[in-house]
């Protein structure tokens, strides 16, 4: 929060926002993505910072970098795969450097809690030759964010701050500081530094010289520190892994790297020379371990035993159990699943979710469906089982078009891409244009639920309001689609199951590129929750036990007994199940009272 100094109980993300504010930041931008979302959300609570949700991570990166070039301290925040989207811009900034301090937050998701893939973004630091700091708790997240701005300005470079889901979403105690003002510097045109395609060859050598200087800086950087313990056992670690290592090896000597790139080579060599057995405790890839062999630590320190990824998994999230189990052979008690059977509990579409209506129709029409990233990916699960593919933001539309190219005669009129409104604006427009440009016939369902649903209702350009709820232009999807050459545009209410099915059927058959806009707000939006609806119930005497109502996949309906029952507290009264019932057995609770 903006107010209150002293001891606070902050998540890593809240602490980064606080640290950036204390560092005198002026501009922050991002696109929502778990586990990074709350960084930008929290920054928006500091009124003196210009904060935006951008249309995608590359735009966010370019906006924040522009602010840096103009002389202000600025920050961009994204999840690990967001860096993939922003990578084109990212890779050129080490050539041109910064004016105001510029910090890039990458929030990785080991364990894929809420992501399509697992990737270790420490490699982007090496790839781009960009320094990277890695906090181990919220207090470090706050402090390291401030340090990142100082390093950025001192070395004229973008600086990465890498968190993981566990550091972003864990809360711990933080001691806040006052803000140090950094008024934006004056802008000075400097084409020889900033028109990179022309002057890049001159700038290229700066990057490696800078990296050498940063390597020397790392040797004396106070947050690369040794915690002295027994010389028998040494641990090299960083980030959240430090916490697990401290619990597994309470007596060890620990080298904790606050800066994970570039490495303090001499410090590492000296540390390794002073211990007999070295444990490398790191999550995901053997990033530290690879550098130990690059530095020749193994060869030069005969007799040193190094234990790392030969024992510790390089997939999924670490935990105290994983570290103790892998290195010490202490295995924790197992789940009771083997004894009694513990069924998994997958996430599901909410009661009354507008996407349910679309998936019910697509399932019925036996369409081949390419999906995209959002809550609506859950349409792949029973009872809909309506999605054939899902990869990453914006991929579904062009994936469908690619399939169409191969099997146009047989599949062309059965292919549908589904995409949410926020994802469409993020990266769905260019592939849409591609279909028109290259004479395709693919049908796209634009699932407009008037928000960014999965990450918790962030504003986007279709909503007519900014991150601070200021009024702004709201994209008119119908006009936009017509302007890029889609003539067949239909709008349906997905609660109207018959109309949704008809629109889809006709669009799929139309033989030209078409878009069905399924328009209904997410039921979790506050204004939707405030609307009162009567819950529905099943009249046992009328129910023929056909289970058709279960086909709408509503978690408020319990189908475990022959006559299904509806939870009064969870039913939102959307009436989708009542529409499916042929026997009028599903009615609002008061209708027969």
């Amino acid at each position, binding site marked *: 929060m903006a107010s209150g100094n002293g001891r606070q109980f902050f998540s890593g993300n809240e602490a980064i926002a606080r640290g950036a504010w204390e560092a005198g930041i002026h501009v922050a931008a991002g696109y929502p993505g*778990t586990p990074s979302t709350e960084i930008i959300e929290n920054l928006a609570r500091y009124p003196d910072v210009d904060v935006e949700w951008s249309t995608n991570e590359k735009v966010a990166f370019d906006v924040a970098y522009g602010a840096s070039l103009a002389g202000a301290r600025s920050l961009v925040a994204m999840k690990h795969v967001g860096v993939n989207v922003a990578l084109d811009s990212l890779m050129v900034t080490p050539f041109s450097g910064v004016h105001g301090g510029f910090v890039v937050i990458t929030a990785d998701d080991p364990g894929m809690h809420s992501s399509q893939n697992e990737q270790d973004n420490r490699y982007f630091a090496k790839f781009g030759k960009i320094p990277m700091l890695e906090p181990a708790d919220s207090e470090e997240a706050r402090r390291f964010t401030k340090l990142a701005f100082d390093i950025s300005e001192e070395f004229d470079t973008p600086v990465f701050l890498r968190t993981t889901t566990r550091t972003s979403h864990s809360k*711990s105690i933080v001691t806040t500081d006052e803000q140090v003002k950094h008024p934006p510097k004056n802008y000075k045109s400097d084409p020889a530094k900033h028109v990179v395609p022309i002057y890049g060859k001159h700038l290229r050598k700066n990057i490696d010289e800078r990296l050498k200087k940063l390597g020397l800086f790392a040797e004396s950087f106070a947050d690369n520190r040794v915690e002295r313990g027994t010389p028998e056992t040494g641990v090299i670690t960083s980030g959240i892994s430090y*916490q697990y290592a401290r619990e597994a090896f309470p007596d060890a000597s620990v080298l904790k790297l606050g800066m994970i790139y570039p490495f303090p080579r001499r410090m590492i060599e000296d540390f390794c020379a002073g211990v007999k057995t070295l444990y490398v405790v790191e999550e995901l890839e053997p990033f530290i371990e690879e550098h130990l062999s690059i530095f020749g630590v193994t060869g030069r320190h005969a007799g040193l035993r190094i234990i790392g990824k030969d024992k510790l998994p390089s997939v999924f999230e670490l935990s*105290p159990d994983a570290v103790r189990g892998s290195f010490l052979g202490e295995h924790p008690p197992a789940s009771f699943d083997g004894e009694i059977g513990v069924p998994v509990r997958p996430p*599901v579409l909410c009661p009354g979710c507008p996407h349910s209506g679309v998936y019910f129709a697509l399932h019925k029409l036996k369409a081949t469906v390419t999906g995209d990233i959002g809550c609506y990916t859950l349409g792949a699960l*029973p009872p809909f089982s309506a999605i054939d593919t899902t990869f990453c933001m914006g991929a579904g539309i062009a994936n469908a078009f690619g399939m169409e190219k191969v099997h146009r005669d047989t599949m062309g009129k059965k292919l549908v891409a589904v995409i949410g409104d926020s994802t469409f604006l993020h990266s769905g427009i260019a592939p849409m244009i591609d279909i028109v440009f290259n004479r395709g016939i693919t049908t796209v369902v634009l699932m407009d639920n008037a928000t960014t649903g999965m990450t918790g209702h962030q504003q986007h350009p279709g909503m007519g309001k900014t991150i601070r709820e200021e009024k702004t232009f709201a994209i008119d999807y119908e006009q936009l689609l017509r302007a890029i050459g889609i003539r067949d545009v239909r709008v349906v209410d997905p609660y109207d199951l018959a109309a949704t099915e008809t629109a889809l059927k006709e669009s799929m058959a139309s033989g030209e590129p078409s878009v069905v806009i399924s328009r209904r707000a997410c039921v979790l939006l506050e204004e939707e929750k405030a609307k009162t609806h009567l819950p529905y119930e099943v009249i046992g005497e009328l129910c023929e036990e056909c289970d058709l109502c279960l086909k709408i996949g509503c978690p408020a309906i319990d189908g475990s007994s022959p006559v299904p029952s509806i939870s009064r507290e969870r039913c939102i009264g959307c009436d989708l199940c009542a529409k499916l019932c042929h026997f009028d057995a599903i009615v609002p609770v008061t209708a027969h009272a």
Partner: protein
Amino acid sequence: MPEGKRREALNRKQGMNILFSGVGGQGVLLISELVARTAMHAGFDVKKTEVHGAAQRGGSVVSHVRFGPRIYSPLIPAGEADILVALEKLEGLRWAHYVRPGGLIVLNTEERIPAAIDANPVVYPKDIESFLSKKGFVVRSVDAHAVALGLGNHRAANTVLLGAMMDDTGIPAEQWTRVMTASLPAKFLDLNLTALRRGMEIAGSAAQSVVS
């Protein structure tokens, strides 16, 4: 729990590990937040962790709270939770192996059938309470939904469960009510303070299923 015994429990453990589990949307994150803040106000180092995102759409949700003189990992190691508060019965079973031998499981009796992930029907395990008692855990079953409805609002169910475990944390009742008073909107405060008290009474009089 008498004051002397409470202090003894805290000194022995030098803090506590409490795990909260439930179904997305039930309020796991809210009650774990309240517990963490109470521990912080009681002067402990505290860490709390969970994962936000898609899992909250009706999936299995878990939140770890650890407090003591100095906390490193925010994640509780399996087998080391002193208390598990399960807002749903199956979610109690799912995380029970995180509880230390003889540890306490406060189990809401509510059952929610999970969605299927394939064509096979979901089998909801029977007799979860007796299974867990036989494993040596102290199982305190609470029909929090019914208790909350009795108080006039089903939304107070989580606070009833909180009340049913708070004495076992060793943190005095005044700390809990103080943090709750500071955190909740005024219009819900009375309801929640009553729910907290009801939960505490239930814990005090509970016919707990313990198999020795």
